[in-house]
């Protein structure tokens, strides 16, 4: 499919749909826009292109010194705009660098996601850190090593090719002389720029990369010392709270802040529809906020009940999405033996990172510094610069390793709020969203409606495949199976809720539909679901994970009963290959399903850290249980009806079965990202397992098990 991956990643609607637009002071406005006044007025969403300098315009620096620094003591600092959110790249990227530099792992310190210190970066999403930042840093580290060798050779007047490097030290084997990296650089910058492709160490020769090193700074996390964004302290720190509208698309009818303003040591800040309070203590800020008298007009809006009709009947004005056609589906349909036509749905779900959005903003003159949890520190920097009409050079965003994101923290609304309040207060201000705010004013994983029509011959040959996805997205939409006649299309639609990225994005919905449908076809022709998949599949990597999962699971060894079912599903996206096998137990009395056992096989090229990878893949499986069995955002008339963990159920200990992760290490293949795709196999495997036990096919996520 001729769809540019980057284009897909950048079509992130959460970035376009902002929570706040501050009132424009005319003088500032003219200063900002200059000749572009009309453009600015007409299209605030031009910000989606990051204020005119989109990612395609950003050249990554070629100077080694932008990425690697060696101090006099030989301590090495690596600079990257990627951020650590629990996916373990602070450790795995450092392993790759240590490998190329030939230094011990603990000689490396990673500076990540600080817009004043690190090279520009688009953001940490789309499983891109390992496949793109990995090679980038390896290239820089390899070049740095060559520079260090050449510098030592010059000093010794030796031939660089005769020198050896190990353990942060260059040695001349001829005379035994040696220098540490620190002695060579004496803290000076590595001034060379990279040209061409320096040689990188092949994975089969890795000694530090490829090993199960424990997480960097792990002790800080078990001792409570690690400072998350919400833990940031500053001198004279104040606390802010924001007045939220009574619903989405609400308009302000009346506002009376006089009672709040009369309270001691309270500052009320109003800027258009933005209203916030600042106090010395968060609980005082909350009291002041509740003293504000406000009336909102919330228009009638659709609810979950009308959702899928809405999605199918409200195409996005931007036009059709990517499509893929081959052969003739219509022609093939006429000649096929068995036809199946079905639709599948996924609901809006929330990321619900355990650390909600948080930011501390501090103004020093016209320079703004913000500590905040975000997957896009540079995007948030640009957002702040735009909101406050200051150059990006006057904004610094610092991202302390945060309490996770799962694609849910791409935006800067909380940073913007803290900065607006701090500007008014003249002191640093911290804003931490409540759980209810996070469930309501963040954005959601898109809901989606997927239709599939297919044809198969009695011998199990797939002949036609038509797949339409409404709203949830094109990621993972193409079938990995061999089908001569295909018509595959993503249909962008209007969305009643603010929606955006989520771990795996639409690959989850598209895999649920495709892998459930494959099961339906296998059942329709009486073929084993694994055998049917393998018959129509030549991709050796997907075959390998399906077979590995099946083997570890003991696929086909037991027959399903009304109480016990077995399901399999697999897929690939972003260079990751996954297969899930699930055993479910149906309880006809309680009308509940219990997951008894999961085997997940995973392959994403050469493994950089097997322990971190195993942790990621297992976590993706656990997170997937929620979307499969119980997570749904309930909404009506612009309000979220279940914005609490008591009403929005996420997977807990009691939902988590034995999970066996089988890793396939392909040292001959480049390392791909592993944060996302591990999530896609579980839900269809569960649905298929429930079908094998009960004969009932559940095509709506979360699955209404109680209705069986």
């Amino acid at each position, binding site marked *: 499919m001729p769809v540019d991956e980057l284009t897909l990643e950048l079509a992130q609607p959460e970035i376009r749909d902002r929570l706040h637009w501050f009132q424009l002071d005319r003088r500032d406005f003219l200063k900002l826009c200059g000749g572009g006044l009309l453009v600015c007025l007409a299209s605030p969403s031009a910000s989606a292109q990051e204020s005119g300098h989109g990612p395609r315009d950003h050249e990554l620096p070629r100077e080694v010194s932008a990425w690697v620094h060696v101090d006099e003591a030989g301590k090495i600092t690596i600079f990257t705009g990627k951020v650590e959110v*629990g996916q373990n790249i602070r450790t795995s990227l450092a392993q790759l660098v240590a490998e190329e530099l030939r230094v011990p792992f603990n000689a490396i310190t990673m500076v990540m996601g600080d817009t004043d210190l690190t090279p520009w970066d688009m953001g940490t999403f789309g499983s891109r850190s390992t496949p793109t930042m990995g090679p980038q840093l390896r290239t820089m580290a390899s070049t740095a090593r060559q520079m260090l060798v050449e510098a030592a050779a010059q000093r010794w007047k030796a031939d660089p090719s005769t020198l050896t490097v190990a353990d942060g030290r260059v040695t001349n084997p001829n005379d035994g002389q040696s220098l540490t990296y620190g002695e060579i650089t004496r803290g000076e910058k590595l001034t060379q720029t990279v040209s061409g492709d320096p040689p990188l160490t092949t994975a089969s020769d890795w000694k530090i990369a490829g090993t199960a090193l424990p997480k960097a700074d792990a002790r800080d996390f078990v001792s409570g010392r690690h400072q998350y964004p919400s833990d940031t302290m500053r001198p004279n720190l104040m606390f802010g709270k924001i007045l939220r509208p009574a619903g989405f698309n609400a308009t302000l009818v009346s506002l009376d802040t006089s009672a709040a303003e009369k309270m001691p040591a309270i500052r009320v800040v109003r800027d258009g529809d933005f209203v916030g309070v600042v106090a010395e*203590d968060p609980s005082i800020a909350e009291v002041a906020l509740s003293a504000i008298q406000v009336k909102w007009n919330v228009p009638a809006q659709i609810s979950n009940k009308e959702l899928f009709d809405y999605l199918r009947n409200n195409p996005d004005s931007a036009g059709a999405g990517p499509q893929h056609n081959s052969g003739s589906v219509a022609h093939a349909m006429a000649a096929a033996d068995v036809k199946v036509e079905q639709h599948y749905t996924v609901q809006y779900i929330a990321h619900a990172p355990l650390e909600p959005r948080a930011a501390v903003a501090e103004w020093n003159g016209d320079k703004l510094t913000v500590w905040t949890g975000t997957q896009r520190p540079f995007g948030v920097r640009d957002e702040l610069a735009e909101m406050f009409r200051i150059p990006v050079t006057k904004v610094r965003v610092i991202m302390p390793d945060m309490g996770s994101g799962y694609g849910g923290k791409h935006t800067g609304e909380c940073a913007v709020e803290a900065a607006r309040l701090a500007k008014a207060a003249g002191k640093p201000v911290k804003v931490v969203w409540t759980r209810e705010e996070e469930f309501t004013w963040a954005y959601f994983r898109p809901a989606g409606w997927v239709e599939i029509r297919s044809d198969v011959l009695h011998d199990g040959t797939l002949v036609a495949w038509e797949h339409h996805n409404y709203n949830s997205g094109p990621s993972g939409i193409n079938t990995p199976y061999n089908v001569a006649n295909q018509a595959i299309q993503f249909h962008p639609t209007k969305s009643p809720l603010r929606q955006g990225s989520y771990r795996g994005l639409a690959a989850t919905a598209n895999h649920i539909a495709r892998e459930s449908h494959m099961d339906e076809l296998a059942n329709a022709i009486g073929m084993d679901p694994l055998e049917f998949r393998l018959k129509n599949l030549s991709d050796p990597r997907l075959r390998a994970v399906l077979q590995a999962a099946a083997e570890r699971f003991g696929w086909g060894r037991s027959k399903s009963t009304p109480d016990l079912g077995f399901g399999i599903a697999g897929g690939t996206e972003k260079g990751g290959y996954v297969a899930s096998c699930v055993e479910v137990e149906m309880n006809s009395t309680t009308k509940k399903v219990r997951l008894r056992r999961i085997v997940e096989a995973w392959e994403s090229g050469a493994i950089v850290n097997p322990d971190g990878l195993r942790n990621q893949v297992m976590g993706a499986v656990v997170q997937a249980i929620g979307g499969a069995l119980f997570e749904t955002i309930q909404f009506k008339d612009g309000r979220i009806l279940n914005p609490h963990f008591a009403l929005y159920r*996420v997977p*807990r*200990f009691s939902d988590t079965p034995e999970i066996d992760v089988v890793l396939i290490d392909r040292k001959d293949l480049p390392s791909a990202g592993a944060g996302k795709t591990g999530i896609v196999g579980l839900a269809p495997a569960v649905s298929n397992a429930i079908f094998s036990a009960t004969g009932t096919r559940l095509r709506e996520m979360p699955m209404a098990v109680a209705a069986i």
Partner: protein
Amino acid sequence: MDDFVLKVNGAEHRARASGNETLLSVLRNQLHLTGTKYGCGEGQCGACTVLIDGAATRSCLTRVASVQGTQITTIEGLESNGALSSVQQAFLDEDAFQCGYCTSGMILSATALLREHPHPTDRQIVEYMDGNICRCGTYPRITAAIKRAAQLQEKGRADHASR
């Protein structure tokens, strides 16, 4: 506003707050003990768990006025003489976290669990820990860490007895 004296991790701390203010807020914003986390403010996620006289307690639902005279233990108080507690060590050994935001609450809940059940069964672990959410989904590793901590504590008791 009232003055309170809180005994946290063996030391006395003074705090000035309204009696309705939560222990979580006082710990984090006045005593700067930020290892205790806000996750939901409703006692649903366990990120704010501390020990009050040894019992696992949600500090986000605990009014500061109600805990005067008690012994409060937070994640910062588990180490002794620079050594991690057995539960902390076990979480480290099992790499039982990803983003780590739930970890303080998990470790304190697990500490209380092992006090009640030194050799917990799988069922006891699930029942005791089910109020603690890990959105990264590391539950199987946390369960393994709790079992490892039980072994470490058993070994500690045996070593102590043989001395």
